[in-house]
């Protein structure tokens, strides 16, 4: 492992943020309604100089109230999933670990559906009622990870094999519950299966929810980053890390909670977008090495880039209709994953 220098970290982050910027500009340009790149630059400047009154109102709505919030949502969802994936992989010392393998997304879906079922019986103010679904999704995710955590304990210690198995079984059990709800409930306005199975960014969350998402991301990702060098030592093995002075139990708990928080937040606003948490950390490891002090921030940028690109494709491929963004990440992600896996074997 090469020693970490500030300039190396900053260079990597600068390169990735430049890529992200380009991707965002392209994503702002493309869509069902055509916008010229020149016009876009012009208008962005106008907005910077507070001359928004010169913009036509639909145009302003499309760019600043539809596309930009959606892109920002994609950035935070992608970054959250990817950082969570990198953390789980380090924590469980298993390259297959990923937020969804642990059942988080299924838990979130069950939570959201339960929230939708109880909502009409609670007589809440509309503003509160609108928050109930994301809150339900988040609670569902939190309960599931907690359950999986305890199921994965062996003699008081986390055993990564047991934990992964517990996650997979819990996930499929919860999927069955979702299917049950979806096929027995009637009349309600339940979001389609596609949302929870494939993920979507098409409907923006409430303003307060996106604020919570951003705040939660920086809090949780920051917390995980403070354990980055401990995660590096964990790669050598638990005993070794312990001998080197790492409080393995504490690191495990902290990272597990923070990574689950990231996943729960992301799932509650976007459904289950697969492969980002699994694949982006692997790609970043290949590109920049496995030092978590570099891996975590680069994975955040990489995840953001991946989701914004995938969502732009989802918006434009069958325009004006839309595909679920998870379908795009799966189409691109599965072959890439197989390629990486074969390459490692040879």
């Amino acid at each position, binding site marked *: 492992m090469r*020693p*970490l*220098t*500030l300039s190396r*970290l*900053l260079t990597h*982050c600068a390169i990735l943020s430049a890529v992200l910027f380009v991707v965002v500009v392209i994503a702002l340009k493309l*869509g*069902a*309604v055509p916008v010229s790149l020149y016009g876009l630059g012009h208008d962005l400047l106008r907005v910077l100089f507070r001359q928004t009154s010169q913009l036509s*109102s*639909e145009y*302003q*709505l*499309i760019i600043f*109230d*539809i*596309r*930009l*919030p959606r892109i*920002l*949502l994609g950035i935070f969802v992608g970054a959250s999933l990817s950082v969570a994936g990198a953390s789980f992989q380090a924590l469980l010392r298993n390259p297959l670990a990923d937020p969804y393998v642990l059942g988080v997304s299924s838990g979130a879906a069950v939570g959201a559906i339960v929230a939708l079922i109880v909502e009409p019986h609670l007589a809440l103010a509309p503003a509160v009622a*609108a928050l109930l679904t994301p809150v339900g999704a988040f609670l569902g995710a939190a309960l599931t990870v907690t359950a999986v955590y305890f199921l994965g304990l062996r003699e008081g210690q986390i055993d990564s094999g047991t934990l992964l198995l517990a996650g997979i079984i819990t996930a499929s059990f919860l999927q069955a519950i979702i299917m049950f709800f*979806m*096929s*027995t*409930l*009637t*009349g309600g*306005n*339940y*979001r*389609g*299966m596609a949302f929870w199975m494939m993920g*979507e960014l*098409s*409907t*923006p969350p409430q*303003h307060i929810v*996106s*604020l919570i998402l*951003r705040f939660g991301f*920086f809090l949780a*990702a*920051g917390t995980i980053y*403070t354990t*980055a*060098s401990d995660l590096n*030592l964990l790669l050598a093995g638990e005993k070794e890390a312990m001998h*080197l*002075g*790492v409080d393995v139990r504490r690191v495990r708990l902290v990272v597990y909670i923070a990574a689950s928080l990231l996943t729960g937040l992301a799932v509650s606003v976007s459904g289950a977008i697969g492969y980002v948490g699994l694949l982006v950390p692997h790609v970043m490891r290949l590109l920049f090495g496995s030092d978590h*002090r570099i891996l975590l*921030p680069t994975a955040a940028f990489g995840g953001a880039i991946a989701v914004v690109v995938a969502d732009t494709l989802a*918006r434009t491929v069958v*325009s*004006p*209709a*839309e*595909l679920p963004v998870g379908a795009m990440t799966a189409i691109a992600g599965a072959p890439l994953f197989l390629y990486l896996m074969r390459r490692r074997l040879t």
Partner: protein
Amino acid sequence: MRKDAQKNIPARSAVAALLVCAAWCCPPSQAQTPTESPAAAPLYKDFVDEAGRTVRIPQPVQRIVSLAPSLTETIYALGLEDRLVGDTDYCDYPPDAQKKTKVGGAINPSLEQIVALRPDLVLVTKSLNLIETVHALDNLGVSSYGTDPHTVEEIISSTERLADVLGVPEAGTTLGADLQRHLADLQQHLNGLPARRVLFIVWSDPLISVGKGTFIADALRLAGATSIVDSRQDWPHMSLEEVVRLQPDFLVFAASHSDSGQNDFDVLAERPGWRGLEAVRNRRFAVISDAVNRPAPRIVTAIEDLARQLHPEAFSSHPEDEKEKKPPPQQQLSLGITGASSGDRVLLEACACAL
């Protein structure tokens, strides 16, 4: 390594600084709710839609976007097609509706395409569209009005109410009265006849029928039929075993062409187990227009059509109606079977949404 980490405080703070910068740079997602104020300050009128929302709608409504095939048909039936500026990929009836600007599917419309059409009003229907779409439109300051009919009677009253909202109450009253007259005529023909027990086939593999709370079940009742399916679910999956036990008198298919309905029957009859149905052995089935799948005025034509096929004796004044599966005579409403239709797909989408 541990010490190494301690030395890298600058690196950490650099990342922290980056994160803070990123946080600061992100503008809030909704700067402001835009206020629509076209040149001539329009009058607004408050309506309560069928989902119970109070919506403020500019008067008169000049630019309409429809997010459901049934609403598109209703707009045409009211003669307001010139005000329809956008509809969905599935809006295929009347054929002219296919030429309107498309905004995507009913479940996943493109918000930006809708906004770009500068609609005064977006029409949605609760059984097909998602509440998330309505919330997103609200946040963008676009008015939307929702319908939610569950019976044929409600389809008619909903049409009249929509006509009122769109500023053409007379057109709504005329259309409503016409539809009511057709239904009343039909009831006179069917008076005293026993209801046929039918299995309405929404989808054959897996077998999906209609629950008793749907407008389709109500349409069947008006056509002198009763669905053998007694389910509270809207789109219940049926087991063949149950269908064999219940032995329907007729199978009812909704198809875009009567040939394709015939085809559906032949495919079904070949499947193992279906010979156990007397209706299959005796080839007792009816094919009606897929208009029955859409809660729009055209459903009345489909009801008449079905009644003629199920109770030919009631219409014996027309000599050609003697035979059971004879295609029905041209309907007075001149809203026959659609052309290339994706009604099935829409319905399936509706199923997915209702589930």
